[in-house]
């Protein structure tokens, strides 16, 4: 394995309403590249995470490329997923040895559309989605199962204000080899696993995919002193902490498509700021924690 360092991370402040995706991205990409100490020319690969369904516009990720500086032409990729999976693709790209530095960015503008109903479209299109359970209803099935199992209380039941709709963007620069000479937050392991799409085929109160991804990322080798969990709904923190063997963790629910990448960014910051020597970051995608990514970072 090639050692990969998180050189920099930037995100928009909460509460943004007036900026479009390109404007948000210019800020965070500019800040991430400046903080990385690298030049744009040294970045050999660019990959983004976003979802056209969130903004209700086809090819929104192409518009967003304006902010990435795609002239002269760059090697670029996109995942229709949270930016944490874009990070995974970038990390794999660095493992090939073809490039030494990558820019990852993500954006979501859920304030433009009915997020709860948009998320319905990720359900099984034949038997579940036609019933139109919205994201809150689906999450409540999971929370109810957790309460019935005696592992959560009524206070953990998702409220009407969930899922949290918030606009935002984030960017990160990672590097390996000589370009990582200044690196102080290192990715020691990263892995993601997915479970069955059918909600009825899963025990919604457990997250074996999180556990498996964590094991493969080396999370259980030694305890971590900082953890960042992506919990679109609050009760999911209970399931994730159990899967990861954590007593406490920082959690965040939004912005959609960004929050997972931002968890890795916050874990890296904890190391860069000297608050942690070993940190874990988690990202999720799909209904009821269907797919999970775990990244373990350490100080040099």
């Amino acid at each position, binding site marked *: 394995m090639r050692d990969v360092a998180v050189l920099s991370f930037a995100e928009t402040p909460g509460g943004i309403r007036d900026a*479009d995706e390109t404007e948000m991205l*210019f800020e965070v990409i*500019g800040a991430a590249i400046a903080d990385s100490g690298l030049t744009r020319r040294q970045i050999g690969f660019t990959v983004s995470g976003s979802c056209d*369904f969130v*903004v*209700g516009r086809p090819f929104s990720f192409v518009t967003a490329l304006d*902010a990435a*500086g795609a002239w002269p032409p760059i090697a670029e990729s996109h995942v229709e997923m949270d930016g944490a999976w874009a990070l995974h693709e970038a990390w794999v790209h660095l493992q090939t040895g073809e490039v030494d530095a990558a820019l990852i960015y993500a954006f979501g503008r859920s304030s433009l559309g*009915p997020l709860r109903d*948009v998320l319905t479209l990720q359900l099984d299109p034949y038997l579940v989605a036609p019933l139109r359970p919205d994201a809150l209803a689906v999450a409540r099935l999971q929370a109810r199962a957790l309460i019935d199992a005696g592992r959560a209380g009524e206070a953990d039941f998702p409220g009407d204000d969930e899922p949290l709709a918030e606009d935002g963007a984030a960017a990160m620069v990672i590097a390996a080899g000589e370009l990582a000479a200044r690196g102080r937050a290192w990715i020691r392991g990263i892995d993601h696993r997915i479970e069955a799409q059918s909600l009825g085929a899963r025990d919604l109160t457990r997250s074996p995919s999180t556990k498996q991804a964590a094991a493969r990322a080396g999370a259980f080798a030694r305890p971590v002193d900082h953890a960042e969990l992506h919990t679109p709904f609050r009760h999911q923190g209970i399931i994730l902490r159990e899967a990861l063997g954590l007593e406490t963790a920082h959690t965040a629910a939004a912005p959609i498509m960004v929050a997972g990448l931002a968890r890795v960014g916050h874990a890296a910051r904890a190391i860069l700021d000297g608050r942690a020597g070993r940190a874990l970051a988690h990202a999720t995608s799909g209904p009821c924690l269907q797919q999970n990514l775990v990244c373990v970072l350490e100080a040099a």
Partner: protein
Amino acid sequence: MSSITTPIRLEFEVRAGRDLTRFLAGIAEGRFFGRRCPSCRKVYVPPRGGCPACAVAMAEEVAVADTGTVTTFCIVNVPFAGQAVKPPYAYAGVLLDGSDIPFAHLVYGLPVAEVRSGLRVRADWAAERRPTMETILGFRPTGEPDAPPSVWKAHV
């Protein structure tokens, strides 16, 4: 059973960003404005979050004329669903005087066969000016002599 039908309808809001909001406010006043890239000095109309070529945030706000030069164009002869204008009509890139990036819009007021690169045009404003692109109905010839290729060649 070979298929099922499950109608889906989602409603989204279209909300312009900071620069486009400013641009549309100018349109409502009958004015074009762009922004100049601090690095390559090009003026973009409409302005965008930054310069996509230099990847830097735009700085200076620049007033741009409502006259310009046709760079490239196409004659639309084919009808399609939702078409707002009856074919044949010309859709052209218009390089507004004082800007560096062509602006795409309808060109009319002359036979479509006479639309050409270098044609000098002026914006045709709707009587009621609102902050939407429909406030610019299109572009009409000014009657000036054609601009030389040095003006438009780089944009073809």
